């Protein structure tokens, strides 16, 4: 399991996430694309942390960063869901078209 293979998986995941984010218009789909990007970054962080390019053995920094990223992703998803809920509550099922009110 070479680092290059791991990083390739991460690069592919990131590109898929980027594609998802660029082409989708649905908020939840974009959020899923973002999760792909975050996971790609996490794989990178762990792999690079283990690689220790500085030369003094594996470091814990990258692993620590992943802990915080996972935590923040959860917090962010919670707030996003709360906002979606409040939109849902206000619009109910009928007025979906009014979601366009902000657009020029």
């Amino acid at each position, binding site marked *: 399991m*070479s680092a290059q293979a791991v990083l390739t998986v991460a690069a592919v995941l990131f590109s898929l996430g980027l594609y998802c984010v660029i082409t989708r218009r649905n908020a939840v789909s974009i959020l899923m694309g973002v999760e792909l990007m975050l996971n790609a970054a996490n794989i990178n962080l762990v792999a690079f942390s283990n690689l220790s390019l500085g030369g003094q053995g594996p470091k814990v920094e990258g692993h620590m960063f992943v802990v915080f990223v996972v935590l923040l992703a959860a917090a962010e998803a919670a707030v996003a869901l709360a906002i979606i809920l409040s939109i849902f509550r206000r619009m109910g099922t009928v007025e979906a078209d009014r979601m366009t009110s902000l657009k020029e």
Partner: protein
Amino acid sequence: MAEAVVFYIIAAFTIGTACVTAFSGNIIRSAFSLLGTLVGVAAMFGMMGADFLAVIQVMIYVGGVMVLILFAVMLTHRIKDVNVSNRSLPAFPGAAVAVLVLGVLLYGIWYGLPGDTARVEAKMTPLIGKALVGSHVLPFLASGLVLLIALIGSVVIARREETFVCGPGEAKR
């Protein structure tokens, strides 16, 4: 050798499910295949010797974030979709951007970086524990604050209000 085979199976599974997430037109199918991707990433963490991260990936991502997303999917499914922009790129330029980025990344990874093993033998979990109360104590405390504020914020936004106010200046007093 066996390790490599297992890794390639996991990698193929992760990328395959991620492809379904990115390309599928059905949002429920996307959401469930994202679940597969997250589990695959957790398995990759495990293979790289990051046991602790594999566990929190499963617990927080699969158990928490994914449930939130599925919840959102079920909700928004009924209001068709919650669009955030009217200017998304069509599929072709979007794919072109993604492929360009991928090309640059792969060129850099395969020609610019050493091909050492990404597996670490050292026990990382005790190191993470020490770092949480040592070198990383500030981000640790700050992330607790973020969680608290996210909790307060989401409860306030999502709870039902008895009294609604009007927008700025829209008839009051």
